[in-house]
């Protein structure tokens, strides 16, 4: 199962290495990892996209929680959330296909951010399905290069992920870390 996990961490030296090392050391999957400062500059948020069975996910969440610099772990699974990723794609734009590429970009509300005689650099922002759909459509026309930011995610509505919502690690029965 694919999960998007948000991790609030202390914005400190070496924290990214701790999180990344946890995944590699324990053989967990990372599809993407995206880090940046939050409203509070001393706290960073990481959005991690990972896959694994329920029991692996349970371990991932618990192990993340166990890191001393990790303040809060949220699994978006079963939550109402929005997620976005930005992708830069350098696509072939031959005379024959230029028009078609532009049409697709328009349909997907992308933007051409650089133009050259034989290619466009296109910026596409969207959730996973949108990005996948766009790439599937332009792939036959020839993608020269692709860079992705990885997903970021946020709860819909009023709910916010607050770092001062301290949680006692593992909660009280070891299960409530899983769904919070």
């Amino acid at each position: 199962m694919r999960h998007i996990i948000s991790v609030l961490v202390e914005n400190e030296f070496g924290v990214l290495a701790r999180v990344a090392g946890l995944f590699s050391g324990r053989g967990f999957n990372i599809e993407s990892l995206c880090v940046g400062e939050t409203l509070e500059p001393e706290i960073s948020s990481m959005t991690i996209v990972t896959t694994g069975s329920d029991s692996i996910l349970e371990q991932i969440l618990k192990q993340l929680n166990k890191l001393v610099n990790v303040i809060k772990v949220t699994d978006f699974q079963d939550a109402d959330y929005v997620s976005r990723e930005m992708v830069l794609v350098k696509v072939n734009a031959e005379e024959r296909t230029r028009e078609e590429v532009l049409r697709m970009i328009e349909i997907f509300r992308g933007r051409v951010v650089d133009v050259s005689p034989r290619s466009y650099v296109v910026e596409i922002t969207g959730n996973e399905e949108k990005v996948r759909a766009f790439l599937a459509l332009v792939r036959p026309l020839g993608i020269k290069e692709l860079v992705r930011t990885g997903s970021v995610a946020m709860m819909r509505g009023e709910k916010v992920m607050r770092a001062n919502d301290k949680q006692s690690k593992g909660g009280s029965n070891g299960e409530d870390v899983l769904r919070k």
Partner: protein
Amino acid sequence: MTSGPGATNTVTGIATAYMDSVPIVVFSGQVNTVLIGNDAFQEADIVGITRPCTKHNYLVRDVTEMARIIKEAFYIARSGRPGPVLIDIPKDVSAALTEFTYPEKVRIRGYQPTYAGHPGQIKKAVKLINSSKRPVLYTGGGIITSGAAKELRAFAERLSIPVTNTLMGLGGFPGNHPQFLGMLGMHGTYAANMAITNADTIIAVGARFDDRATGKVEEFGSRAKIIHVDIDPTSISKNIRVDIPIVGDAKNVLRRMLQVVEEDKESFGGAWDHAIADWLRQVERWKTEFPLSYTRNGTLKPQYVIERIHELTGGKAIIATEVGQNQMWTAQFYKFLEPRRLMTSGGLGTMGYGFPAAIGAQVAYPDMLVVDIAGDGSIQMNIQELATAVQYGLPVKVVILNNGCLGMVRQWQELFYEKRYAISVLECVPNFVKLAEAYGAVGYEIEHESEVDRVLKKAFANGRPTLVDAHVNPEEGVYPIVPAGAALSDMLLV
């Protein structure tokens, strides 16, 4: 310790502490702040190297942070599930001056160990126990760490539940108690492994379902519902899915569980005794059918030496072990009566652990008898520490069960690799008595069974660092043994 090589030399010790939840704070030197990252002389990224084997670590970049970091380090090392913390201090930072203010409190936003078990889960657990007919307690090092031996005993005795310990849990329940089954696992007793295999309810407390304890996981307690009490949520449902997880401190949770039992005296009265009577009879049969044993045949048996050490120390010495057969025989034949009497590298299995650990214990407890039960292989990993013992006048005792080989490796080759004894026979074993004497320690030798008591008594009474070289029968194996990957019920008994 020294930056670079000094720091990297501690990695095995740190990893050993990490696996066995031992709280230590390690201070490492680092090159000058401006040189970090430049491949300077004696530079090693020890924070990076130890990241996966410390509970937490720090690089102090400014002397004004030092007091806070030290306070935090000791707090993190000792609280929750204890573990090692490393503090790396660059040369310029250690030389810098600052006003010393030691913080009263620590505040670490992301660190909040859970001590109290969830009341609802505790009730559920007691209810499950009440409905069981074949309960067993499987307890580990968490009992010792949390200081829960008294609570465990009260709980086990109140409900008459048999108890098995992991290696790290030995001493958490008295080794001579009628309800004690001995250690479980690869070299566990027949009774312990049969009880786990046939139980309908396993109450695991402060144990982490290590593969040496569980054997083939699919068959571990496959007829049982499992209650798991542990302070570390990641230990729960990691290797084996459990039915009732309780995150909390063992002492707290056991005390609370007993209260819940007492509130429900009815359910745990005569009906309870009746319900588990058949089971207790069965467990007793297993205990008498195949107790731990060895054959005395005139040769010097390692198990005999350990039994005599137990007898002569009244089971009250602080015992360290090395790794291998010496460790397993100690676990089997030195009946630990109290917690904190055994120091052994369980999780990492680090040869060379025992002697330095014994020296440390002797520093902490100058008036106690401290004995390292060693193998001739393992002792050579840190034998230079004889110098430390002599220099500081620490009267530690080392008893080498000298079988002329890396016995545990030899045993596996005998049983599972058609007796191809590759690299396991030590063709050059030093004269340990002379070696001890060369350091200024005392050395004794034991060749025959008949000398054991006399030499051990002399060694334990001489007040000096002493090494006893006991030439034991090299053919002796550790039994029972569950072959790697087999189920606990598939024991080879002899």
